[in-house]
């Protein structure tokens, strides 16, 4: 049943109400018509006075499915893993280095697969490389990934050679020594890989993404650090997981703190982060991230604690990405989140007008 049909049953009276006084009722009605479970949650929202065209969306939600939030997660995981691997390489933690490099390549490969799968014309994937465009975060991101990918791959390839033929040489030089520069360059490109995805979402007219643009990059890098440290806690031995434990706590703290600040600054558009699927994901993310970070206190002594808290951190990051993604989609489907903030701004500041000094 489409929302329009639900409204149609209201008949003529329904048609009038949307153009006149109390369209707040529309949101509740539409929610009820769409899916039983969501209706109840929606009705708890205080009705904001606004008008819309039959409750239909103003902006369009992105056509993206689960591949994009999965990519956001995996991209962050790859970036954090490259950083951990580089640090481990410089501080003689071979197992941490190995797991980091392999995780980075694995996550990157998964990312690329998700990105291509999401395209309407996957065969034209390489068209991304036709142009380099600063106004397009997706273009910027493509080039960041293009710079990061080969070094990430080279570092992981070196690791594979080390596993198959320990101590292998290329001429007089050890393979391990050759891969160090690759790992360091990958670590240099890794932070932008983790943070540009926030701009990717924020540079849209999707209300709950755009309104988050100040804090979202910090949420995402925090989430990336937590995820990568989580995987390192799962894979690396106790003796080497010290840095991962510290990065896990730092990343989780940054993620949670900035997410809190983000919601405070978003106004009405923070609502979808608490509703429906997005709300459930964000709540799960919070619980998992807190539990994972707390678990790291024991992760230096107990292998079980390390694995469990690492898994919680990974799951928390996954939920954060899917929660933020889903909140945006929900905000685009409801005209309230487009119309009301613009109306409020109009009442506060008047229409947006260009001023050269801006």
């Amino acid at each position, binding site marked *: 049943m*489409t929302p329009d049909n639900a409204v149609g049953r209201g008949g003529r009276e329904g*048609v009038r109400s949307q153009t006149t006084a109390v369209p707040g009722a529309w949101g509740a009605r539409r929610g009820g018509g769409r899916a039983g479970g969501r209706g109840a949650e929606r009705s708890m929202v205080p009705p904001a006075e606004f008008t819309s065209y039959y409750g239909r969306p103003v902006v369009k939600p992105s056509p993206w499915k689960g591949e994009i939030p999965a990519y956001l997660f995996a991209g962050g995981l790859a970036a954090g893993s490259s950083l951990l691997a580089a640090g481990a390489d410089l501080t003689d933690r071979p197992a941490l280095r190995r797991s980091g490099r392999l995780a980075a390549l694995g996550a990157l490969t998964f990312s690329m697969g998700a990105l291509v799968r999401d395209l309407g014309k996957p065969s034209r994937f390489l068209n991304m490389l036709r142009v380099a465009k600063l106004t397009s975060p997706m273009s910027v991101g493509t080039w960041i990934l293009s710079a990061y990918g080969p070094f990430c791959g080279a570092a992981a390839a070196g690791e594979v050679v080390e596993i198959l033929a320990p101590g292998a040489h290329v001429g007089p030089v050890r393979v391990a020594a050759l891969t160090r520069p690759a790992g360091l360059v990958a670590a240099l490109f890794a932070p932008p890989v983790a943070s540009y995805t926030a701009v990717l979402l924020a540079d849209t007219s999707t209300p709950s993404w*755009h309104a988050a643009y100040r804090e979202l990059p910090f949420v995402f890098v925090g989430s990336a650090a937590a995820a990568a440290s989580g995987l390192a806690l799962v894979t690396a031995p106790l003796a080497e997981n010290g840095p991962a434990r510290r990065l896990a706590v730092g990343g989780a703290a940054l993620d949670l703190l900035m997410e809190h600040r983000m919601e405070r600054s978003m106004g009405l558009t923070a609502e979808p982060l608490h509703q429906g699927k997005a709300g459930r994901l964000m709540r799960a993310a919070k619980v998992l991230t807190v539990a994972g970070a707390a678990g790291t206190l024991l992760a230096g002594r107990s292998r079980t604690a390390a694995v469990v808290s690492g898994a919680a951190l990974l799951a928390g990051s996954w939920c954060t990405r899917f929660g933020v993604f889903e909140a945006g989609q929900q905000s685009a489907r409801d005209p309230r989140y487009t119309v009301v903030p613009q109306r409020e701004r109009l009442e506060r500041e008047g229409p947006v007008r260009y001023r050269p000094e801006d």
Partner: protein
Amino acid sequence: MTSLFRDNDLWGPLDPAADAGYGEDKPKRKGFFTDTSICIGCKACEVACKEWNDVPADHFDMLGSSYDNSHSLNANQWRHVAFIEQPARRTAPVDLGMPGHRQDDTPAADTPAADFRWLMSSDVCKHCTHAGCLDVCPTGALVRTEFGTVVVQDDVCNGCGYCVPACPYGVIERRTAPEGAKNVGIAQKCTLCYDRLGAGETPACAKSCPTQSIQFGDIDELRERANRRVAQMHEAGIMDARLYGNDPEDGVGGAGAFFLLLDEPEVYGLPPDPVVPTRDLPQMFRRATLAAATLMAGAAISFTSRRLVPRLLSTSLGRRR
């Protein structure tokens, strides 16, 4: 200035075609002025658009909400006539300039006023001066034409879908249906009949509009015409009349397709005060850079808390030399 962008690249008044690199010999910027006060909701524009541009039929439902059954602007609907019924506002009748319907023919005192009014408006891609869709397109499939309009190159678009959430008006969309139709998987929207413009013709919708509610022409001239029209309506007591999208200093740098409306924009399904998302892009990049630096520093601190700095200096670098 530390910005990577030129002045007014992201918003503010601009000649978009000149900014895109077209030379002095380019044609004047073209667009639409849609005067909704004389729209009769006949949908000739919708039909003409579909016929000329070979846009497949889709969303063909009886929606049951109004006389509007074409739903919205979308990949398969490049013109969309909105239909709104609402309780009447007490205003004097206005001379619409149409034959047989003059103000003095129908004195308001003789006829009981209807207790409702119908609003009809033919919506279309705004061909923004600062177009969110074009800004974010990562393949260069979306381009600015010599007429200052925004067009998707079907053979370049890879269907990434980024333009869809970028548009502040919810116009552009990735075509998903009907199966077997051309350009499925690719972003689709109004081209302002780029092919007809090239041949010196009027876009199909404007050509077919029987009341000249859709007016096509040079933007400068249309803006003047719109100003005259709204002044005329205010003079006639229609104080609800207002222009939407005509100001080159607004959030999208002025729309190439702008409107005269008789109620608030959101009544017609339009955003009340849209801003192109890329206006805030420099700030977003700054925040993301700061976040990236935070991550780098955090990773470094996780290792240095014991021994990174001394080892880095003594062991690692020493061994590589």
